[in-house]
């Protein structure tokens, strides 16, 4: 999952050309990804991880860095499995 997100951001979303993205890098504040990019990223994560991101979950705590996203995805997949 981590590699998929990193490569999607690097190849499709970044607003400036960069060599690497650190999973702790602030994607929201740095301007590395713009707001349309964030919407695309959320759609990408929904498809790839098989989860549903509700509007209330569109928070800085869940999407600031790739690390935050991975934690969020894991917790979603966990609760979703429990519900089934």
């Amino acid at each position, binding site marked *: 999952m981590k590699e998929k997100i990193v490569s999607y951001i690097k190849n499709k979303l970044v607003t400036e050309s960069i060599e690497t993205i650190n999973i702790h890098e602030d994607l*929201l504040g740095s301007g590395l990804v713009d707001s349309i990019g*964030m919407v*695309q990223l959320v759609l990408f994560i929904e498809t790839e991880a098989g989860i549903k991101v*509700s*509007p209330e979950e569109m928070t800085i705590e869940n999407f600031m860095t790739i690390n935050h996203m991975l934690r969020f995805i894991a917790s979603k997949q966990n609760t979703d499995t429990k519900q089934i």
Partner: protein
Amino acid sequence: MKSTYILPQLLESVANASPQSEAFRYLEETISYSDLHRKTEQLASYLISLGINKGDRIGIYMNRCLETCIAVYGILKAGAAYVPLDPFTPINRTHAIINDCGITCLVTTPTKRRKIDNLLNEQNSIKTIIGDTIRNTTESISWETIFSVSTDNFEAPNILEQDLAFILYTSGSTGVPKGIMHTHYSALSLAKIAADTYGFTSDDIFGNPAPLHFDPSTFGYFVAPLVGATTVIIPDAHLKMPASLSALIAKEKITVWYSVPLMLIQLLNSGTLSKNDFSSLRWVLFAGEVFITKHLRALMNQWPHAKFSNLYGPAELILCTYYHLPEPPKTDDPIPIGNVWSNTEFKILDENNNDVNPNEPGQLAVRSATMMQGYWNNKLLTERSFHKVTIAEGYDHTYYKTGDLVKLNPKGELLFLGRNDRQIKLRGYRVELDEIELTLLRYKDVEEVAVLVLGKEEEVQELAAVVRPAKDACINLTYLMEFCKVELPSYAVPKTIEFMDDFPRTSSGKISRKEIGKLLEENQI
């Protein structure tokens, strides 16, 4: 009481009257009026020691952060004009602006180091970087050093209200950025008129989501200091995460919110409005594009205690009209832009710059205290954008031609009909692109729409619509096309309708029809 003529006096008077009042806040960081007064004097002293003269242009290259207010007022106190540079804009464009107005000094923060390095790699006029120490040979100085500068010998330059205060660059329709020049007088006029119109007080807390290069930032940076209020600078991250923005507005107890409609619609759709406490919110102001009436109604029903007002004005005037909504709109008709505010008058002109007959549509031209001085380094464009009415030999009234089509409704309120250039001729028919958009918006689950003309030659031109459906909604293309055929004259029915999850936007959040057009022509949608 002493009269106020120039912007730095705003800080001085609050700093003297109530020094500990909070001037600006950014998350956990905060600055009082007296601290801001002192720190801006330190920056001004340093700038003057560099040899910066009255009227020189100094760039501000920053994300939204607390240092922006120090940069703005420090530059103004030195007698210079500030030029905000959008840090998210491509480097070539930033270069074009730096060269156009001859910026020799940039004020920034360490977070922009990577981009500053890139900027300095290119040939340009920059000699000094303030706000970060860099490895390059260019002279640079950190904020810490600025804040240790002695102001004992500071002599405030003699600034007049007619002196240049800032230049806002916007993308011209030809693609060359236009530098809109505002003076201390036009900016201070804006602050005074806005404060009178809305009755702002020192108890107010302004939410400022606008970046400095976008003219609504004048509210947070000048209107709030005029009344001695506090401005909360909204971080970039919150603007991308509506649920977090919603929580922040509640937590900061913001009383005056001013943004483009898009941000308010995103808040509405975030599903968090009922979970947070917005009881402090007193005024919700919006401008910059049309607020789709059905969304506005939904928001007003969510926040019944707040007053809503539609503001209008191109950056050349900052603002010029307002319309207070007495209640949530009952129909989906677009709301008026209302009446011109104080110290302002208008005309509605036909194609030959004559006044139109009553109730006929025409181009809005405005004469106001908030009007720009002109476009930097572009006399021709300045002359073309002004409409002069000779009152007597040697005495003219100068109006700014907005390029926007308006007409008066029976109540004498101005209705915004669209951009002048959004009215096109298609196979001999006059087509209003904005009217087609408004029609499509009435269709269920159509969240936003852009209608454009494709093709350069008139014979092969055709209309294309791109629709953003509501989240998780599925719109049947055949039904939508049928709807268009019923609601629109045949020549105005789009030949194609495409769907997009989200639209490309300008840095101020407006739909970028230019980008959408490009994507359509390249078959990328």
